[in-house]
């Protein structure tokens, strides 16, 4: 991570508030050769947090309602954007009946997501467009690592007593360490939601700092369980604490809450990311997860990222979908794009 966007292109740190790069710069893709400076975290700055307290739900809802109407992506662009959704996907299986064999199947799908004729039709055979990671429970990490060796696809493990996060901290940290030992290079942790309701920010901060330490080199995605947090203000404050504590990504949901990732929640979180970037110059990733199962919905999320944060956040280093059935719907849309025929699920290889 020698050269960073932060240092070269974005000129952060000059003043407390650094505007995002203007349109042209925002549209420039991140040079693949370079990484992104990893967020080192910062002290728990309650003043900074408090300055982010103002989150007006009605206004956010209006923004996302018009956002998805203001932008429309058609024809070849739509196909390209759907491929982008695949490239930013954490292909996920998190079921209590998962088995090694099921995980291997998922990994095979991740390695080879498109039917040959579709890949050829789209002209992408020369480019490895496939999910960024496979996301599993701890017992299947080793299996996935094995299945994905040499592919460049990351293995993400949900951890810390997923989905509730209510085991003793020591247990939760050990769980992270075990997954890292098994080869996971991305760890999706959950926060105990009660700490948010109790405004126990220091405790939450400390826990996430320890989780980050337990991750070592593995990237840390902090799941807020936004469906449980009740207000967008809580979502905003929890996002700030997670980033200050060193999260590489903040993530909406486990997929197990009664309310999944919604666009207003996403908007609050990406605004938190923007504020953190403006304050510190570090780029934090965002992962909406849960309930995103249609190609159309994935486009809405991509538009949200592009409009609120800009082009850098359309790369798997900064944006992921947590999804299981989304891939198949995208395949169907891509087939339709090529043939003009509406497709059926069974025409595409299952995971």
């Amino acid at each position, binding site marked *: 991570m020698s050269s960073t966007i932060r240092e070269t292109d974005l000129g952060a740190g000059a003043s*407390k*508030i650094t*505007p*995002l790069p*203007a*349109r*042209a710069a*925002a*549209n420039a*893709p991140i040079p693949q050769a370079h990484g992104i400076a990893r967020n080192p975290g910062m002290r728990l700055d309650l003043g900074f947090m408090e300055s982010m*307290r*103002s*989150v*007006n*739900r*009605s*206004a*956010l*809802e*209006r*923004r996302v309602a*018009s956002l998805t*109407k*203001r*932008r*429309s*992506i*058609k*024809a*070849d*662009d739509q*196909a*390209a*954007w759907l*491929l*982008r959704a695949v*490239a930013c996907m954490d292909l996920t299986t998190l079921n209590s009946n998962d088995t090694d064999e099921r995980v291997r199947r998922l990994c095979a799908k991740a390695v080879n997501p498109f039917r040959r004729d579709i890949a050829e039709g*789209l*002209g*992408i055979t*020369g*480019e490895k*467009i496939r999910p960024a990671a496979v996301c599993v429970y701890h017992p299947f990490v080793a299996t996935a690592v094995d299945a994905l060796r040499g592919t460049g696809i990351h293995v993400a493990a949900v951890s810390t007593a997923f989905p509730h996060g209510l085991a003793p901290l020591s247990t939760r940290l050990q769980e992270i360490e075990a997954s890292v030992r098994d080869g996971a290079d991305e760890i999706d942790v959950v926060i105990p939601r009660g700490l948010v309701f109790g405004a126990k920010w220091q405790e939450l901060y400390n826990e996430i700092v320890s989780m980050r330490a337990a991750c070592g080199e593995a990237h840390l995605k902090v799941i807020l369980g936004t469906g449980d947090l009740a*207000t*967008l*203000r809580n979502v905003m404050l929890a996002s700030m604490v997670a980033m200050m504590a060193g999260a590489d990504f903040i993530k909406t949901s486990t997929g197990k809450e009664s309310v999944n990732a919604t666009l207003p929640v996403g908007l609050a979180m990406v*605004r938190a990311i*923007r504020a953190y970037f403006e304050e510190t110059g570090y780029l934090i990733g965002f992962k909406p997860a849960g309930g995103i199962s249609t190609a159309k919905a994935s486009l809405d999320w*991509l538009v949200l990222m*592009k*409009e609120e944060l800009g*082009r850098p956040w*359309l790369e798997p280093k900064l944006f992921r979908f947590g999804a299981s059935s989304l891939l198949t719907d995208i395949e169907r849309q891509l087939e339709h794009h090529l043939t003009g025929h509406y497709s059926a699920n069974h025409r595409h290889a299952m995971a």
Partner: protein
Amino acid sequence: MNILERYHAMDYGPAPEARNEADAWLAARDFGKALFIGGDWKAAAGGKTFDTSDPSSGKLLAKVSDAGAADIDAAVSAAAKALPKWSASSGYSRAKVLYAIGRAMQRHQRLFAVLESIDNGKPIRESRDIDVPLAIRHFIHHAGWAQALGRDFPGHKGVGVVGQIIPWNFPLLMLAWKIAPALAAGCTVVLKPAEFTPLTAILFADICERAGVRKGVVNIVQGGPEAGAAIVKHPGIQKIAFTGSSEVGKIIRKATAGSGKKLSLELGGKSAFVVFEDADLDSAVEGLVDGIWFNQGQVCCAGSRLLVQEGIADAFIAKVKTRMSRLRVGNPLDKNTDIGPLVDLTQLDRVKGLVAEGAKQGAVCWQPDVALPSSGYYHLPTLATGVSPANILAQEEVFGPVLATMTFRNTEEAIELANNTRYGLAASVWSENVNLALHVAPQLKAGVVWVNGTNMFDAACGFGGYRESGFGREGGREGMFEYLSAKLPLGPVIKLAVATPQPVERSEGDAIDRTAKLFIGGKQVRPDGNYSIAVATTKGKLAGEVGLGNRKDIRDAVAAARACKAWPEATAYNRSQVLYYLAENLSGRADEFAARLTQLTGATAKAAGEEVELSIERLFLYAGLADKFEGRVHQPPARVVTLALHEPVGVVGIVAADNAPLLGLISLVAPALAMGNTVVAVPSERYPLLATDLYQVIEYSDVPAGAINIVTGRSAELTGVLAKHDDVDGLWVFADADTCAKAEAESIGNLKRVWTSNGHSLDWASSEAAGDALLRRAIEVKNVWVPYGD
């Protein structure tokens, strides 16, 4: 570009809305016969046409019939012919027609949207998601009003034939705002769309035919200023509704003066967008996008003056600039366009000129580096900082995508800056503190206030301005009143007093001489000119002398009324008690006032006693209603409450007539006071001693200084001074026809709300001359939108 390249670029690419249906519609029509009169499509009698073109390319779309005075005549005749049957039809049957129009529009909504974008240049996203659905909502909402007329507006009926003139910025939506309430009220309509944007009105006329609107009920006449002038002046029209510039609004006010036409004006604005330090700043930025960059800023209520608290100004401006750099300027039919072209080259030139002038006056004008189409009337979104309140960009309505920015230090200054304008259409307040937002909203001189939002509209909520942004409301219950009238009990015609008798002989024997003075700012003062006029008894003897007030006395009285904050800020309960106390004290001197009436007017003791008693009763009535003529809570179809607050008009001039000199004066002053207005009263010219006797009662009734001011003198002259005084907000004139007409014509300096009797007196003893009809004139309805949810 292949898919892989697009995958790396991640641009939006073109997303054009198909226009083939609209083109087919355009090709199939004969625009040389575009006047929809009496259910038929007609060419202009003079054979003239005007061009309408596509502002994104400048290309001609159609040559459209250009109506002249003869065509307006024909349209008014058709409307008049259709009126009796339409107005007599049941509310239910009118509701069915309005419903049918709404549903038929729904079935063709995309065609409406595409045509609107082609003709006006507004982004298809806006015409599709905002203009057209709202227009439909207006018809369906007003279907209900048609049927609820008897229930909600007892004693009211439609005003008759209405002439409506609408602008080019929201062609279909403004048509809906005009036609829907008119039809609901049982009026028939002659509507003139703007020359730049005639197309959707033509499609609407098609819809009317199909929806079963009777011939002549809706007449749509395409044309320019000549057609507009013919509508304004037409004697067969009972009401004019106009939306457009303040300049033209004033011309219409003057042209209709004395005609007895009902008038509503929805004019320009320079609306404030106030961002407090505790606002959700990112959301406020989005609010600005919807506020000033909506419809290219060609919106009368555009939030064109950004007032931002000093402590957050730099951060906020940085956010605004970042957001501006993401706006997409381009083809209005592209679904990804945020900002389309301005409507016409003339408009583009005007906006450019204002920006250049603003920059010359010291504003720093910033524009983002975004792509601009090579042809068409495009203007980049523009942010002007360093704008002083005197800068042209802070003063003038630009009607373009130009935001003028100022900072404020505290809440008081924010309110002061926001109100530092001749306009008063809308305002937007951003704060997460509901205490602050609801503290500020009532203090803003604007007909609509959006809390943490902007440009929210609905058929159930009134829209319209304070000050020079016009008068009257559109939408909701308050909007329906603009198309309804209730008969007031008229008395005899008032003749201009040639000369009041000037007796010399004193009437009474040995009473000590009394000097009646003017009553200004809670004090008895001598008239500025130091002249007096004699007041005669009915027997021609000298009853006393009163001051001959002049323009300076009016000036002082208005200043005192303006300075009186205690009265408008008092609670309604408090005002109620003061009015009761006035009644109580008048009652204590009832015999004296009755004797004065008899002495001056020759009324019998019984009649005089009754007038005094009725005056006391009326004070009681308005004392009681002070805390009961309340606003409403509207329910637009969103998670928001809209508070329709009743606010006082402000400083109200009241000119009373000679008939029932005590009761007439009190019947006007009491409702004005009850609603919190401060009053400058010019009492009966012939019997002013009743008013000068009354100030003694006022003096010991706890009325705050300046709440009531009394200036005696020549009514016609003083009316003229009041009409021309630009700090008088309302003027009620009961005088001869000529004085009434002049009051209306001369009110255009600040577009004060004028109510005249048109030369008639009113039968003040009638119970119909009291109550809501007067209270409604004593208030402005302010709609405060409060979205909620956490």
